[in-house]
């Protein structure tokens, strides 16, 4: 065993990190890259870095260390490859076929079910804006023009809706 190999982090620790934070990390990478496939690549690269150099991170900061390394890997990938702007559509389609840790089918179905219920409980004007922004992928400027409301109103409705949906998701079953 070489010195480099002996200095590597215990694979069991990496496995635990991935189990605990892999899904969140993948979503974070999707948020940065807007491309689930690139996010998967960045995640793989980050795990390799974690195995090679993770021993330098303090135990209590390993998660933040992993996220930071993953972020840097994501920026590297983003520079190499241009990404399209149709992220919402690709995200929804990919999520239905993805088998990675971020898209555990049972958990995914549960989340979707809860969001659907929360959507139904939204006031009509908020639900309309959520649909226009996420389903129809219209910008807030276009939404405001179509609904003939001030831009700030459209934004505040969306923000209120997202806040309500988030709080519903955070509630224990």
């Amino acid at each position, binding site marked *: 065993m070489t010195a480099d190999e002996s200095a590597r982090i215990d694979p069991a620790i990496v496995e635990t990190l991935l189990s605990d934070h892999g899904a*969140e*990390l993948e*979503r*974070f990478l*999707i*948020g*940065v890259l*807007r491309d689930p496939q690139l996010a998967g690549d960045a995640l793989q690269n980050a795990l390799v870095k974690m195995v090679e150099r993770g021993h330098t991170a303090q135990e209590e900061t390993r*998660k*933040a260390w992993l*996220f*930071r390394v993953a*972020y*840097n890997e994501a920026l590297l990938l983003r520079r190499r490859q241009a990404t399209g*702007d149709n*992220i*919402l*559509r690709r*995200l*929804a*389609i990919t*999520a*239905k076929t993805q088998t990675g840790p971020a898209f555990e089918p049972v958990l*995914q179905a549960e*989340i*979707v079910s*809860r*969001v*659907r219920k929360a*959507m*139904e409980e939204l006031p009509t004007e908020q639900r*309309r804006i*959520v*649909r*226009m*922004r*996420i*389903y*129809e992928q219209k*910008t*807030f*400027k276009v939404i405001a023009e179509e609904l003939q409301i001030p*831009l*700030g109103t459209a*934004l505040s409705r969306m*923000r209120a809706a*997202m*806040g309500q*949906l*988030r709080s519903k*998701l955070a509630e224990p079953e």
Partner: protein
Amino acid sequence: MTYGKTKNNSMTTKSNGLNSLDLEWLAFQYFTDELTEDARIQFENSLEKDQLAREALARAVELTQAVAMVEVPSHEAASNDTVCLPSEMDATQILPPNRASSAWMAPTAWLAVVGLVCVAALLYWNPLGPPANLHPGSQPVTENGASASDSGELASLWVETGEFLVTTPLVSEDEPVDGLLDNGLLDDRQLESQGEPGMRSEVDVDRLQAPSWMMAAFTVFTDVEMQESRHEN
């Protein structure tokens, strides 16, 4: 750190003053590409250093993804403000609510029509059916003007003609069925030419008008008979 204004100039927030809701909203705007270039760069700087911002972005992605995957309720799909991603929709969502169940209704409706015709025919043929009219002057009249007794006679005649059709089709294979209907099922010349002179004397065919249900039934009956005779030939 100042995040600056969004593209929509609607908010100005500072990193130090950001509460969790502000951070979540900022992360959502970053993910949906609603930030100005300056705000985007500033937020990405925070992503490099701030674990809370990274986690907020992960939550924004999770929430947006879940919302994007929620199917549009069927009762709202018809309204203008609800659009589902085309690639997400399956056939049952595209079809109108009544369309999906209509596939089995067509044969069922036909069976019901045929059944009704048979029941109506049996009622007229059955000796235990509607009693004979005790008052000849007050015969009930069918919708097309034929009296009930006329219809009974027609039914009897139709049975006999039907039996006759089984062995000797009234029309040739080249003659369209419509021609038969246009000329009238009970055309006197047809009956006499087939060697049934007595039938003309027993029934005053000219004053009879075939009810619509009988014509419909006869059309089906004739089709079946013609197909069978073709098979036999």
